[in-house]
């Protein structure tokens, strides 16, 4: 799954550690999601969407589309 996390993070000048702290997960988790190595669960995806004030679809997109 592709995502815009790096862009959204950069817009807010947050480091991976900053985002991890806000999500209450490890920095490694943020990195794995951001690099597309790990697809988050729906609850975590909703948490990300709420944090960035947007929708899940605005952050994640299907690579096959």
């Amino acid at each position, binding site marked *: 799954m592709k995502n815009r996390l790096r862009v959204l993070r950069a817009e807010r000048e947050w480091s991976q550690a900053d985002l991890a702290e806000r999500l209450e*997960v490890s920095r*490694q*988790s943020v*990195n794995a999601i951001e690099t597309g*190595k*790990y697809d*988050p*669960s729906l609850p975590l995806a909703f948490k990300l969407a709420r944090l960035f004030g947007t929708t899940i679809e605005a952050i994640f997109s299907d690579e096959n589309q």
Partner: protein
Amino acid sequence: MVCATSNPATRRYMRRFLVTMVLYALFLILAVWVFVHFRPTGPVAWLLAVLAALPIIGQIVAFGLYLGEEKDEFMRNLQIQSMLWGIGATLSVTVVWGFLESFVHLHRMDLILVYPLYCILTGISYGMLQLRYR
């Protein structure tokens, strides 16, 4: 093989793990001492032997509790994956060893080594998965 982060679930796991290690050392010393000095038989011997194994079972329970308490789904996933690789590798090694024992009379593997073998193989799996997700 919990070690990467220091969240509350990890800290609780480490505390429980240390308690089981201390109990393991104490129970093992007690069992060996009693067996050397009193050579117990029957139910007492059985009880002492099982007593030494209980902290190891406690470690498995502590890991299960950790998996239930870990809020970081990615880290939980990493731990479960490494555990599955560890279980698979341990079963593979022991089944091959078993056939070698039967057919080519390889030295008999002591069953007490299976758990440390599982820990080592799970640790190796965890390290390899860490590299993959780095």
